[in-house]
């Protein structure tokens, strides 16, 4: 008996076994179906991975307007800011953006300098929470308080509250940014001072699964220690940069 005859006999035997209704036959058929299904699913996953590798990215337009006025924040306010610089890095997968948020306000009537604090930051409607470094996004929370990890590690936020030389920390964090802005933002130098401006530098890493394919909608909750109406009016009347520039000596306070 040749080898071919032996193999043919074996196949016939297996075929006959599978066609029977015995318990062993049914178990064998289930195992074969499972194996086949697993192969099909793996094939689909392979196709999806291939599509992922072929991700063509997106076209991002930041389009800043040179006629935009920098806002002045008094009290507590939510502001999206104005994009004043953008830089693509890391083989087009990391987008750096500078968001100018407010003018730095002056002194209160009593002479105490006002301070603008960063309270919270929202991205596409999600409130962002930070990792231990106070810069890198950890969890994000929706309006109902449900958390997600989809932005975790993909976004970094560096706040500044008085020009490039004054890094600050979110009030919710114990640590945060301590570097000058021009040491963080690629292509910036020491002449990029952002004089008397409150701003944030944001680093966004592309991730199609987390739907980070655009700059997105950032919103910052800022609180200015200057919130009393008298202080605000005084600042607005005397400030030579964004106010009326009236000499203090001419105001009876």
């Amino acid at each position, binding site marked *: 008996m040749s080898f071919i005859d032996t193999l043919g006999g074996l196949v016939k035997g297996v075929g006959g076994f599978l066609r029977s209704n015995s318990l062993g036959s049914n178990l064998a058929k289930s195992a074969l179906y499972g194996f086949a299904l697993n192969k099909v699913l793996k094939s689909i996953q392979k196709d999806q991975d291939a599509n992922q590798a072929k*991700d*063509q*990215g*997106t*076209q*991002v*337009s*930041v*389009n*800043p*307007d*040179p*006629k*935009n*006025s*920098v806002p*002045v924040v008094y009290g507590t306010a939510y502001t999206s800011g*104005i*994009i*004043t*610089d*953008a830089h*693509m890095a890391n*083989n*087009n*997968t990391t*987008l750096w953006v*500078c968001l*100018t948020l407010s*003018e730095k306000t002056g002194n209160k009537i009593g002479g105490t300098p006002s301070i603008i604090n960063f309270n919270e930051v929202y991205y596409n409607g999600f409130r962002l929470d930070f990792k231990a470094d106070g810069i890198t996004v950890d969890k994000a929370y929706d309006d109902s308080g449900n958390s997600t990890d989809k932005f975790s590690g993909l976004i970094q936020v560096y706040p500044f509250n008085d020009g*490039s030389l004054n890094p600050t920390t979110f009030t919710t964090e114990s640590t945060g940014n301590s570097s000058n802005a021009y040491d963080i933002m690629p*292509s910036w*130098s020491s*002449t*990029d*001072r*952002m*004089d*008397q*401006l409150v701003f944030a530098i944001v680093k966004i890493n*592309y991730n*199609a699964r987390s739907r980070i*394919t*655009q700059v997105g909608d950032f919103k910052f909750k800022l609180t200015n220690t200057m919130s009393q109406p008298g202080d605000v009016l005084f600042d607005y009347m005397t*400030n030579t*940069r*964004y*106010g*009326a*520039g*009236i000499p203090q000596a001419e105001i009876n306070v």
Partner: protein
Amino acid sequence: MAINLTSYSGLRAATFVRISVTDYRTTPTGSYTPTVLTFSDHNTAFTIDSDTYTPLGNLLGISDTSSELRQTNQDINITLSGIPDANLGEVLYSKLKGSEVQIYRAYFTQAGAQIGSTQGRWKGTVNNYNIDEEYEVLQTTATNTVQINCISSHNLLARKVAGLKTNPNSIKTYSASDTSFDRVPSLIGSQFDFGVQR
């Protein structure tokens, strides 16, 4: 603060003008020095806050202003008549425009005693001026009338546009060598290929 004038049978009012000229000179080539010019339509010299106001009498005219409770944006004209040619250089060579103008008013009895304190009446800035010459043919001399047009501080503030715009020129007006907004013009209309790996 209001002055009660009901108990006086007669009184005189005088107006005092104070022009603070930052760049003042009387010759075409001299150096500028800050100077305060003071004059009034009173009949004698009068001192307010250590500034002595030269009496010009009828040679000084100030246009009417309406007295309102609220701050008004009314402009005012100050007319200085009878100015000889020799003194015209003060107007011609000084940078009068932009100078701060304050006008006070004081009340006096018929005998010349001041009633109450001096009242601030108007405050503003020199907006423009013009010179009218009156030439005397027989005497071959000329006298001049200088009219100074002043704009009120209220009007000036209403016209003022302040604040930083997000463009390079705007930030450089406040911080000359700041390059923070230099890239804004080049970013207009530009697109980034986000996620397109090369």
